[in-house]
């Protein structure tokens, strides 16, 4: 989750472009990943009900209800049988005490959430204490039986308060970007489920499941009345036409990572296109920019998944098909370096399919991530 204070956004936005251009060799001398040297296993992400496959990682921006500021919330995509799209739990890791607790356990079936509950990488916490998490559900662990899911609104005690679904919401998939103004907020979330068939429907040319180019990025404007759950005031598809497809191993592949630049450009990891694209004017635009324009493609990128932004303004992009995180300077599009944050050679290539969510630590010096093959929350630090 990336939460941006609008006052800060305004200040950054008026910074002269010339100053950014002449900044001292940001891509060469100001890399973030080489400062990371330690990778610490913090905790198991398996709750008492045995849910598996951690996806979303967010850091609580405030203390509210059961949550303390700085807590790390992680959701699970699979239930104990390891069927994907069936996980219903969010766990809370508290760095101060190093303890993990169950924050929320949702019912498997929800009348207003088509297909039920299978918690995805789309999760955020608002400063008002509300947690919003995506559901990309399945009955049999494949997209053959998937529903369109929805966005679930939880209070700060982990109780379900509302469910958002509708024609523009179809399998909220990737990590959210949030602009939080207190009583109003804007969410950005990718939708990767439109018309996706089961994994056995193959493209004869590639041998892979058929690619459906209908994935979108949805901007959702919220009003947050005092003491009441957020209410959607507007939904705008700001990007569409991204590839999405079923996958036997990872359930679904589609646009996953989102990160907001200081100039209001939204960066999207287009997993099937193996690229990071930019959607200009994402905060203000009234229509779709299609698939935007490419910022970085191929190179160190290997199926880019979740995105976050390092303190130096560079994007950190999780690779899906190896255990690396890639650092990209979005101003130049240069892929500066990558680091192995999962080198497990039980997979080929090492770390293949192990990584998904990522979130910066509050001090900006490191980041949290999940190793979903061993169901653990990790922390990378200098």
């Amino acid at each position, binding site marked *: 989750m990336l939460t941006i204070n609008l006052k800060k956004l305004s200040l950054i936005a008026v910074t002269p472009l010339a100053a950014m251009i002449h900044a001292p060799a940001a891509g060469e001398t100001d890399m973030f*990943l*080489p400062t*990371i*040297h*330690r*990778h*610490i*296993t913090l*905790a*198991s992400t*398996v709750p*008492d*009900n*045995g849910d598996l496959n951690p996806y979303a990682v967010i850091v609580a921006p405030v203390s509210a209800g059961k949550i303390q500021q700085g807590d790390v919330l992680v959701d699970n995509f699979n239930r*104990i*049988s*390891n069927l994907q799209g069936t996980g219903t739990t969010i766990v809370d890791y508290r760095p101060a005490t*190093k*303890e*993990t607790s169950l924050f929320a356990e949702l019912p498997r079936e929800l009348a207003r959430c088509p297909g039920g509950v299978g918690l995805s990488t789309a999760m955020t916490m608002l400063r008002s204490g509300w947690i919003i998490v995506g559901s990309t559900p399945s009955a049999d*662990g494949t997209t053959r039986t998937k529903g369109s899911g929805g966005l679930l609104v939880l209070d700060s005690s982990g109780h379900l308060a509302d469910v958002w679904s509708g024609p523009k919401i179809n399998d909220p998939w990737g990590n959210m970007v949030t602009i939080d103004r207190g009583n109003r907020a804007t969410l950005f979330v990718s939708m990767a489920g439109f018309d996706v068939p089961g994994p056995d429907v*193959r493209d004869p040319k*590639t*041998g*892979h499941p058929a690619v459906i180019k209908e994935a979108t990025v949805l901007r959702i404007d919220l009003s947050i009345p005092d003491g009441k759950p957020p209410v959607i005031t507007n939904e705008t598809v700001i990007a569409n036409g991204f590839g999405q497809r079923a*996958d*036997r*191993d990872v359930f679904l592949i589609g646009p996953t990572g989102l990160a907001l630049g200081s100039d209001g450009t939204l960066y999207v990891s287009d997993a*099937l296109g*193996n690229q990071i694209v930019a959607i200009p004017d994402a905060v203000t635009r009234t229509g779709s920019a299609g698939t935007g324009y490419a910022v970085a493609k*191929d*190179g*160190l990128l*290997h*199926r880019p998944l979740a995105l976050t932004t390092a303190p130096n303004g560079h994007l950190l992009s999780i690779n899906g*098909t*190896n*255990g*690396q995180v890639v650092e990209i300077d979005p101003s130049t599009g240069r*892929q*500066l*370096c*990558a*680091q*192995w*944050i*999962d*080198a497990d*050679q*039980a997979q*080929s*290539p*090492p770390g*293949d399919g192990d990584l998904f969510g990522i979130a910066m630590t509050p001090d900006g010096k490191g980041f949290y991530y999940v190793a979903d093959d061993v169901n653990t929350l990790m922390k990378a630090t200098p």
Partner: protein
Amino acid sequence: MGGLRPFLSRYGMSLTIQETSEGIGNVTGGVDQGFEYEGLTQMALQLDTQRAFGLHGGTFNVSGLQIHGRNLSADNLASLQTASGIEADRSSRLWELWYDQKFLKEDRLDVKVGQQSLDQEFMVSQNALLFVNTMFGWPMLPSADMPGGGPAYPLSALGVRFRLRPVDSLTILAGVYNGSPVSNNNGDPQQENATGASFPTEGGALFIGEVQYAYPSLGGMVYSDKQPLSGTYKLGFWYDTEDFPDQQFDNAGLSLANPASTGTPLNHHGDYAFYGVTDQMLWSDPNDEDADRTLNFFARAMGTPEEDRNLIDVSVNAGLIFHEPIPGRGDDTLGVGMGYASVGDHASDLDRDTGFYTGSLFPVQSHEEIVEVTYQYELTPWCQLQPDFQYVFNPGGGVPNPNTGQAVKDEAVFGIRTNIQF
């Protein structure tokens, strides 16, 4: 599972059950021909101490085996490198029972204490585990030379193992275990420890150490998309302080084939061997968007200079592993492998002595080779089918066929294995 797994999960425990079943048989050679059924049910229960009671880095593990069906290698093949890694005496037995605790920052040290099966951690080639033949798992040399075949499936031994990661690319494994998985090294070890619960502590000690280098390693930086392909390299050594019988001479210095022999082999104190293992990716298909399509090489060799007390002085495995050989079948694997076992000079000389003293053309054991071609087809994420072919050259290294007195003829072995995870 009737709610058992959720119940266990509430207490930080996880249960895994896998059934391996195969039909396997030889159509040529051997001491007999025909197909047999072999089966193994493995169960493992683990407790995560952090989830159970808040202690970071602790794992309790208990596992059991239910071995059913027959044993083709014993019944038909008389080969050294037995045809299937699940072959064992029919039994229900305890396998491993240990506790592992992590220490130091970044969990750089962990210590495992209890009854352990060394084939789970030592001498392992990750790629070789695909194959059906036993010796791609626990190698031929320790299977033949260690007391009781060593603490490996279906046996195990009490001991303690240290694993240290001083730098991210380097791992050091060191352990000391009871010198034998059984109390009495003279009988059938699986009968001597019929339930796996005899926990022998008498006798000698087995010391084993292994240094592992891996690329990539955690934290490794990459500045170019032209990065080296992944690989691991391991060097190891073991020393067992038990007594080892001479392969040729008795305790009076006569050949064991000599009619005047006491029949009691000369005893030697201690035994040791060195080994090396490599797993190296050779190629990754740049056009495969899933990055599953890779070609990998593995090789493992072990040798001992102590030929007087060892049936096998050198054993080697090598092969190629092709993941996703058919585009779009990302979870299928094709493997081609070979195994080589060399019979030590003293064991060969005993065969010569036997021929001399009996005045017959007694076959002399020398070496045995196998080749294996196997394809693992993923039917569902919880079920794999694996057709398999093996060819055994000079079975038993040239061991005589009791039916003919001639060396056992080369064997063509066909099989199909299923793995089902519950």
